[in-house]
């Protein structure tokens, strides 16, 4: 109740803050790993790309988004807004990658999640843009460029995450068992009660077609034109 009043009060006092960004394009809902708004790919090509991406989802979540036009927004701005909305990748690995293409501006960007910045540093992302995608796009071979880039990125992230470290179980003493049986459940119940108040805020998280979607981004990757 108090929260509702607080919300009404704050809404009256400062206005709804989101309305200040009304002039920027809305980020679409994620429907699948390939969103082609410009009609650059035919149905077979799009589904092929989706297949390649879906085969590698355990190591990375790659998203392709092809837009009609940037509408004068810097590509870095649009791409960080998109990944902040979609939260590509998993929470533990932060392994999302967005390939954003605007054919009418001849601009593109690879946005790399924090967990893959080691495997795909900016210089490497720049090489993918310059040496793999650029030449193909200049020949209007959009499918080939994207396919090669996706394969390259999947392969790198597979190598990065291939050998998960094994956890070794430590011996458990009698006291620790007792602790586990009584104290920790009690603590759990207290934390649960505390969290009931906070859960509401978490529910407004990312919008993802799969069960995942909580990867972090800090602006890694590279932009380029062709």
């Amino acid at each position: 109740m108090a929260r509702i009043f607080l919300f009404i009060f704050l809404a009256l006092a400062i206005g709804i803050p989101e309305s200040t960004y009304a002039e920027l394009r809305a980020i679409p809902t994620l429907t699948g790993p390939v969103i082609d708004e410009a009609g650059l790919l035919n149905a077979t090509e799009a589904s092929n790309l989706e297949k390649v991406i879906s085969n590698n989802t355990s190591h990375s979540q790659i998203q392709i988004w092809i837009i009609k036009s940037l509408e004068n927004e810097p590509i870095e701005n649009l791409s960080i807004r998109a990944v902040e909305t979609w939260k590509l990748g998993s929470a533990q690995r932060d392994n999302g990658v967005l390939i954003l293409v605007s054919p009418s501006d001849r601009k593109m960007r690879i946005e790399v999640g924090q967990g893959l910045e080691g495997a795909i540093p900016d210089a490497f992302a720049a090489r993918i843009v310059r040496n793999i995608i650029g030449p193909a796009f200049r020949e209007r071979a959009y499918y080939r460029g994207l396919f090669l880039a996706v394969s390259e990125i999947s392969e790198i992230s597979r190598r990065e995450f291939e050998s998960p470290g094994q956890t070794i179980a430590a011996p458990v003493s009698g006291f620790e068992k007792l602790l586990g049986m009584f104290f920790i459940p009690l603590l759990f119940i207290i934390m649960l009660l505390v969290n009931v108040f906070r859960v509401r805020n978490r529910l407004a998280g990312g919008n993802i077609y799969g069960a995942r979607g909580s990867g972090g981004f800090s602006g890694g990757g590279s932009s380029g034109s062709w």
Partner: protein
Amino acid sequence: MTKNSFSKHLTPLFLAGFFIMSLLLTGCGVQSIPQQLNEVEATWAEVQNQFQRRADLIPNLVETVKGFAKQEQGVFVGVTEARAKATSLNISVNDLNEANLKKIQEAQGQLKSALGRLLAVAENYPALKSDQNFRDLQAQLEGTENRITIARQRYIESVKQFNNLITVFPTSLTNSIFFHHEKKPQFAAENLNEIQKPPAVKF
């Protein structure tokens, strides 16, 4: 009425009171003000982290450009001095105020323009421009500039929320009773003077 039945009536009342109290507490900033302060600390740490990342790139970049353009001494000295000045300003979030944030911004702005001159030099040396090492460093520098922009945006957003919490009723009341936090300083628009001036065109 015995004492026993009195307490029987009192216990649910007490529980209900406790429940309402805790609801009020979560809405009035006892939790959200420290949480938001942590958020400000985290976002400021990220800003400094990215400043450091840019500074770390510079020695390599200078060496690479030197390999192709030894005679541009003035530019190298400019970059090195700007870097030294920028890295000497390392301020924790607790000591952050309008004045020293402005200083940091000035030093970082000078570093940015010195780096701009360094990259402009490269335009005159085709061999340098096509050097793979230089291109990689350039991509890293671009990436870092982008990361700085994003880290700044996130800091600005978190400070906005924090300042709202401690200045807007009712959480402002909680702050004045319990926490006594001051407003955190905001970044100003970068190079305001340069934005107002139209760019000079030379032929």
